[in-house]
């Protein structure tokens, strides 16, 4: 049995080593391209999804969101709860917030964004909103009457057509009037302008919780506590842990909270990804099959002669399978090299999406599946045409 493989390998190695180098190089290049095509777009999409998720965590919800008990509007004793949560193993930090709509008026322009009251000292340990300041400064613990405005909300004096209602170009140092749900109106000085790249955040305004306490007449008002865990990915386990430690408020993971709109985006990406993978795979199958098929058909006469001098068709078929596998292996190696080169290039010149640069995410599973599918294709592409050719009449094959 092994004898057969030896002869097949001998034949395959000579046919490749002494065959047309140009055709071989071209074939390997095509397979390399097909390989890159199979992996590149899914990696980019995976990178975008990771970016989106990271943004959701960094700017909107942290890892876990604690909300008032069912039926309540406020979290009772948020200060104590935050201290308690911070002591739970696996928690990095947590911070209370009060988020509600309010009407902001500037120079006669009025809009009703989400105004989020934060603890300026705790907030940066949990969230990255403070990194988005593009002019002015972030809030500080001692501030009163100061507000941060998202860049989209702030608007632009030059802009004639507004896609969303804005304040028409408010700057740092200007004063805006904020009317809260309870009807209280208070003047705030714009301390900074925020730009995170996440449209949701860039439409918000941020004030300190101390100011809000005065406005609401409630001490320590909070309707959210955002919790940053030490690791991302174990939110469900951490949620259970918090419950075990006696947190009775509602606990959500960032995935729960982002369900509605980001999940649908990620879901769409998954569909795009699936379609792109299937299409790439079909292209890969067809291209590799055609390339190897043609090379075998081209050697039809030679295959006929080998059979005529008594070489068993199984040896011939195996030798073509070996050749196909070899070509495929070279193509995969070349494809990996090409892919690494592209990734290297993208590391230097990143693709910038709203919200930041996207690093393509190479998933080992995808790479392995791609390589495996290419090899299966090579196996079939080596087998089918040589099987067909060795099945036909020897004389017909010899005549060419």
């Amino acid at each position: 049995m092994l004898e057969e493989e030896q002869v097949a390998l001998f034949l395959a190695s000579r046919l490749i080593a002494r065959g047309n180098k140009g055709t071989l190089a071209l074939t390997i290049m095509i397979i390399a391209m097909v390989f890159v095509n199979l992996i590149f777009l899914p990696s980019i999409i995976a990178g975008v999804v990771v970016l989106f998720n990271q943004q959701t965590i960094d700017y909107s919800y942290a890892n876990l969101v604690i909300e008032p008990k069912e039926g309540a509007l406020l979290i009772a004793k948020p200060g104590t709860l935050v201290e308690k949560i911070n002591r739970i193993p696996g928690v990095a930090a947590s911070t209370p917030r009060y988020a509600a709509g309010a009407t902001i008026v500037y120079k006669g322009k009025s809009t009703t964004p989400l105004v989020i009251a934060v603890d300026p000292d705790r907030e940066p340990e949990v969230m990255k909103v403070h990194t988005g300041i593009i002019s002015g400064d972030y809030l500080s613990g001692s501030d009163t009457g100061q507000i941060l405005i998202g860049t989209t909300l702030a608007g632009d004096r030059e802009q004639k057509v507004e896609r969303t209602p804005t304040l028409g170009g408010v700057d740092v140092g200007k004063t805006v009037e904020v009317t809260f749900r309870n009807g209280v109106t208070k003047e705030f000085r714009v301390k900074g302008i925020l730009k995170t790249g996440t449209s949701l955040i860039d439409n918000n305004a941020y004030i300190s919780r101390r100011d809000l306490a005065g406005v609401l007449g409630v001490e320590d008002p909070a309707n959210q506590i955002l919790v940053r865990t030490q690791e991302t990915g174990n939110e469900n386990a951490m949620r259970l842990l918090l419950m075990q430690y006696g947190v009775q408020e509602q606990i959500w993971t960032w995935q729960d909270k982002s369900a509605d709109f980001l999940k649908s985006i990620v879901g769409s990406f998954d569909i795009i990804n699936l379609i792109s993978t299937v299409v790439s795979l079909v292209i890969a199958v067809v291209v590799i099959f055609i390339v190897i098929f043609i090379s075998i058909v081209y050697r039809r006469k030679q295959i006929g002669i080998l059979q005529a001098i008594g070489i068993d068709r199984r040896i011939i078929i195996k030798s073509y399978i070996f050749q196909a596998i070899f070509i495929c292996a070279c193509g995969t190696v070349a494809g990996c090299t090409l892919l690494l080169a592209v990734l290297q290039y993208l590391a230097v010149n990143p693709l910038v999406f709203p919200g930041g640069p996207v690093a393509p995410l190479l998933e080992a599973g995808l790479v392995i599946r791609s390589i495996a599918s290419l090899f299966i294709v090579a196996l079939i592409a080596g087998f089918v045409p040589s099987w067909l050719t060795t099945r036909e009449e020897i004389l017909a094959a010899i005549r060419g």
Partner: protein
Amino acid sequence: MIRAEGLSRIYGRGSVEVRALDGVDVEIRKGEFVGVMGASGSGKSTLLHLLGLLDRPTAGTLVIAGTDVTALSERERTLFRLNRLGYVFQDYALVPELTAEENIYLPSKVRGMTAKECTLACRDILALVGLKERYNFLPGEMSGGEQQRVAIARALVNNPALLLADEPCANLDSRNSVLILDLIRKLNRELAQTVVMVSHEDWHRKYFDRVIYLQDGKIVADPGGNGPGSTG
């Protein structure tokens, strides 16, 4: 060695059928050097294809070296070609990516010799056809005559019971043709190699022990044979 009875090969069906070979009875003895001659289209190649197990007869029986080859399966036919037959084509039909030695090595290795035995056998047989120095040459680096000698060496490497050659000199000039014919006759004389060779060159006749003449798929003369048209 070979006994064929009523050997026929009919191409096509119904009104357009071509009787390429039409009820040929022939017997070839061990050690004979038989020429097959006749006009173009008379069925010479068809006969050789049937003897070489490259094609199956439409009718008739064929026994080669004691084996009823018409009863063999496809796989057995392949093995029979490998072990018992040597076939030399008009256009050499070497594998262009293999050197002279590797072309010969292939069938001997498939037959099951060790690599060392194969290499020794290849060198011996290359020396026999006078190409000892050319063992490492690719077909593209050799003349037509040299390539044909490699092809003959490849056909001989497994010590076939029967060597078949279909116009092996057709692509060669007369000097090289003589070389090939001398070689085949030497093999026939010195190794008692049974040979059936197709030719349409009259001057080749002097090399043959016996000539079978074909016309329209039938044997019209076979001096030295036992069948119709024979004189011996």
